[in-house]
């Protein structure tokens, strides 16, 4: 069907997409290997490849503690958020109850909420509650803002699961709760996984809450720490150090994308188009 010419044409277009997506990544990787005056050589590639920037970054408390914070906060927020979303999405997809549309509307409203509009009051509230500049102070907003997407992804998945399985379990004497836990959860595991990846991306990426609700290395996550690298005098060239730190925190993203490409695509599009 497809002529060779059109196949080559689409292939070239695909190549253009690869250049589009990878050029800035390649640039920051290249920059992270530059050293000394090389940083300002105005060339794409370093004239001499050096690992110095990575050594500097790992010797910097600002970065290592931020990395620890980011990993811990993102993982905890992801786990708890996905558990809550799984339970809620099950109810939305499977049970009849009043107010279901209200819940979905609330989720939509939160998904489009301008987060910055909240940081002022949250800053104030967190200080009086004593959770300003702590892990939990970031975990809570991350959960709130990732729940909508998780609920959509998961309820879309739950709708695809055959009803009969659950009914069969209930006929065999399982309570609704058992039917949920023993039948639905294993079937829905791929969906749960997708929701977890998208939630992790959100938490890993967040900057607004990260700079507003933290003050020290105690809880400051990587994106906020990167912003504070600039202007710090103990780096002669923050450019290269920031680049190296950027590459390090991009590695988990690329790993997840490479391994779970299909799931991420399915998750991002599940809410948008109904089959």
């Amino acid at each position: 069907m497809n002529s060779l010419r059109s196949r080559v044409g689409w292939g070239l277009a695909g190549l253009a997409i690869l250049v589009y997506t990878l050029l800035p990544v390649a640039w920051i990787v290249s920059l992270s290997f530059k050293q000394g005056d090389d940083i300002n050589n105005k060339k794409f590639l370093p004239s001499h490849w050096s690992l110095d920037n990575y050594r500097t970054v790992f010797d910097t408390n600002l970065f290592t503690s931020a990395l620890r914070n980011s990993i811990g906060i993102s993982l905890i927020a992801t786990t708890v958020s996905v558990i809550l979303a799984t339970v809620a999405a099950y109810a939305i997809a499977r049970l009849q109850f009043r107010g279901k549309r209200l819940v979905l509307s609330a989720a939509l409203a939160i998904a489009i909420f301008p987060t910055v509009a909240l940081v002022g009051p949250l800053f104030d509230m967190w200080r009086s509650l004593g959770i300003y500049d702590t892990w939990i102070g970031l975990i809570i907003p991350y959960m709130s803002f990732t729940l909508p997407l998780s609920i959509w992804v998961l309820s879309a998945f739950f709708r695809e699961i055959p009803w009969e399985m659950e009914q069969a379990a209930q006929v065999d004497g399982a309570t609704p709760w058992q039917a949920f836990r023993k039948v639905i959860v294993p079937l829905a595991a791929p969906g749960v996984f997708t929701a977890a990846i998208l939630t992790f991306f959100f938490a890993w990426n967040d900057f607004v809450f990260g700079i507003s609700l933290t003050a020290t290395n105690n809880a400051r996550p990587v994106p906020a720490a990167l912003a504070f690298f600039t202007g710090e005098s103990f780096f002669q060239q923050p450019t290269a150090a920031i680049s190296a730190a950027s590459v390090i925190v991009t590695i988990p993203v690329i790993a997840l994308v490479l391994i779970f490409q299909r799931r991420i695509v399915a998750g991002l599009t599940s809410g948008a188009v109904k089959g």
Partner: protein
Amino acid sequence: MTTLTAPPGTGDTGRGVRASGHPRLSERARDEQRLGWYLVAPAVIVMLAVTAYPLGRAVYLSLYSYRLTDPAAKEFVGLRNYGVVLTDSLWWQDVFTTVFITVVTVAIELVIGFAIATVMHRIIFGRRTVRTAILIPYGIITVVAAFAWQYAFALDSGFVNEWFGLGDKAWFSDRWSALAVIILAEVWKTTPFISLLLLAGLAQVPEELQEAAKVDGATAWQRLWRVTIPNMKGAILVALLFRTLDAFRIFDTIFIMTGGAEKTESLSILAFRQTITRTELGLGGAVSVLLFLSVVLIAAAIIRGFNVDLGQVRGD
């Protein structure tokens, strides 16, 4: 389906219709209601705790002259903060900047996103590679992307001026060139999201329609506008809605690249500066509330104006 299963002994008057005319719920159905609420409640509480209450608090504080560093001077001022904000030319400048960035990025993204979606839809050799690569800008930290583009255009470290023979062009010391780089970084980072939504839409367009149009002699351009786009209207509108509202709250890229200098400040940066940097929770509250209202207005305008099927957006 579940209304017929009231257990014996308790269902004596339970079945049938109450005097009010509403069908009375069986015990089983009531259990289902209750379970539904128990399961949804934790998620709803967490979602509202960090949105509804702080928003209410922002509305409340916006009626006061209140600076965190000087709590004793807190004073009720009614709507004066709103008057101050709305008569300040800085507010309107930031409104313009934000709207400008939103309109330009979303317009560019819809076009590029559609092109990328078409390629991903049609390509056979290397399909998986392209679909994986497109997720990298989506997944990468916005701050990292902003740094990468900033360094690429920077006077000292950048390669862009060198590549294109622009000499010493200082991209970030002029409003429009700074906005151009900000928009470029935003487009790069968020086009993949749009292209994936559009790809899902493309997959819904029946191939037979394309073939039929081709047989009838429609050009590729006509097929695009008469067959493809009308059949994926839903996906386009969902992409438009989400990306517009997302673009409108732009913060990270501007914060990293210019910090709002050279008149590149967005409304989100303004709200942040008032509340966090200057700790003016009263005035900042007014900015926050106005920002929130703008988002609500835009959402309503898109949903009404384009007749977006809210059920599809909401996922019910």
